[in-house]
């Protein structure tokens, strides 16, 4: 069984929701990213989403954009990120890892991405490839990798059907109109839309974008299979990068995990 499916099964057997945590690889540096990946898992993250930095990340708000910029100053690239994941796998072979990034970087490392499953990657989420398109058409083709797609409040029902057909692992439901780190969650709309996805497919649905505090987390996890948190974690990492004491990150993650129990 694939690692994502296995993890989500285990959680649902325990009646638990999944916590997907996002960090940008290489922010503040790759060595610290390794430490932060383990720390996140120890504090309650179930699935790691590793942001691949890009110069022009159009779906990101300022917090994550700036993290991409900081990482690029360290000349982070996909090869180095895969090396990071290999190191992580020396100690943790259970936690699923998803690469999240933009197509232009993935295209430059097609062969590496196609081999990345053997190296410890479980899924890819390419933000700027619409979900009804097939990544195979762009040379990214490995049956072992899960292809995670986004569905947003503006996605039409017809397109949701197509996207669900092309996706494996889980659907990432974008909870608001906006970039990462925005606010204004509309609980009713989110509930309706996730219900619709669930009515046509058995694929798990994670809700993300705009989750800041434990109330948001609790609310969204009540209609989904789990939540994704990015900007808040990235912000706390940045705040504590100077002295590299990340207990605030760890506390935040445990609080969120408690909120969705």
């Amino acid at each position, binding site marked *: 069984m694939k690692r994502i499916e296995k993890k989500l099964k285990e959680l649902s057997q325990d009646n638990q929701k999944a916590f997907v945590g996002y960090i940008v690889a290489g922010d503040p540096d790759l060595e610290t990213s390794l430490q932060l990946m383990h720390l996140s898992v120890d504090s309650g993250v179930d699935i790691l989403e590793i942001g691949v930095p890009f110069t*022009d990340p159009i*779906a990101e708000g300022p917090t994550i954009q700036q993290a991409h910029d900081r990482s690029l100053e360290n000349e982070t690239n996909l090869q180095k990120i895969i090396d990071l994941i290999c190191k992580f796998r020396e100690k943790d072979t259970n936690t699923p890892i998803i690469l999240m990034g933009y*197509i232009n970087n993935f295209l430059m490392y097609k062969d590496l991405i196609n081999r990345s499953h053997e190296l410890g990657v479980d899924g890819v989420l390419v933000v700027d490839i619409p979900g009804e398109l097939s990544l195979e058409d762009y040379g990214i083709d490995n049956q072992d990798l899960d292809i995670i797609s986004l*569905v947003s409040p503006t996605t*039409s029902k017809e397109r949701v059907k197509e996207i669900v057909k092309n996706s494996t692992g889980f659907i990432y439901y974008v909870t608001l109109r906006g*970039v990462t780190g925005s606010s204004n969650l509309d609980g009713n709309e989110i509930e309706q839309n996730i219900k619709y996805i669930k009515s046509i497919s058995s694929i798990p649905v994670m809700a993300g974008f705009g989750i800041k505090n434990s109330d948001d987390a609790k609310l969204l996890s009540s209609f989904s299979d789990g939540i994704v948190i990015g900007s808040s974690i990235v912000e706390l990492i940045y705040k504590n990068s100077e002295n590299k004491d990340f207990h605030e990150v760890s506390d935040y993650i445990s609080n969120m995990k408690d909120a969705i129990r």
Partner: protein
Amino acid sequence: MKDNLPDKDGFFGEYGGKFVPETLMYALNELEQTYKTLKDNNDFNAEFHRDLAEFVGRPSPLYFAKRLTENYNTASIWLKREDLNHTGAHKINNTVGQILLAKYMGKKRIIAETGAGQHGVATATVAARLGLDCHIYMGSEDVRRQSLNVYRMKLLGAEVHEVNSGSATLKDALNEALRDWVTNIEDTYYIIGSVTGPHPYPMIVRDFNAVVGYELIDQSQESFGRMPDSIIACVGGGSNAMGIFYPFIKMDNVELIGVEAAGKGIETGEHAAPLNDGTPGVLHGAKSYLMQDESGQVKGTASISAGLDYPGVGPEHSWLKDIKRAKYVAVSDDEVMKAFHMVNKMEGILPALETAHAFAYLDELMPNMNKDQHIVINVSGRGDKDLNSVVEIEDIKL
């Protein structure tokens, strides 16, 4: 004549497409549907052409550049005077068209990115005319070097948002405009400023600018009894070039030449010439030639002209390059300044620094032409906006 590209998915050969975050798909599909219904609608076209005539002042003249022609003493040089349009550049053709789309779609809020500020001014102008709320994104580096246009936009009632991320130029302004659009998707219309971005924009912006090329067909016939031998246009995103090239793509005898910004020189890497020194990649929703490094990160650009200072280019140009239907060359900042002065002194025309790139190619082109040939330069815009920059570059005391 109509071309059948892009295909239904928005591709010109392998270039173009819709590489965008999911939230934008709805808006792009809505726009595509609206445009499909309106583009052959008589009322829509009548309104568009009436605005072009009465508000923009079209047709723009085709003017014989007598002294320039004598200077090179080979082919006749003709100027397609887009600089005489209302607001001073070809950019208004596109904004007049797109604001009509916005009106038909009932959108109340208009956003745009701008580099040189010409597109920002052209957008603020049409928004003012319809009383619509208008927001312009502009890199802080460009705000500085095109400050006159910033003031013009404000006069027109637009709010100018300075963008400090990345290289603080056109590319970053586009990123920010796309982020605004993702956030305000339902009530906002994004008027993109060139033949760039996701499908259907490259097609729509081309079609609205193609009026330039269609006029040129008739004017060439009237002025010298046949079609031009060569058409030259500067290429940033590529909208003025695409507009004048498009009706001529199927006329194989007409040579199409796009001039990119070589900045400090192609060999220095400090330039803005993706068609001359780039590789295919995906930026701002479309696949096209792109200035990028081996990890797929977009490189910084350098050009004396804000409007050409962009690492990407419209996908249709990438296609025209690959099928060898158009030729893309590049000229350096120094060559551009020389041409800028030449056009002022010899023709009494103050070209935009963008436009001066097209003139700067004459030195190389003209020695190989014959006396009985005719070439046309697209004078994409006037240079009033650039006077501050020129004063700074040449260290002139006013």
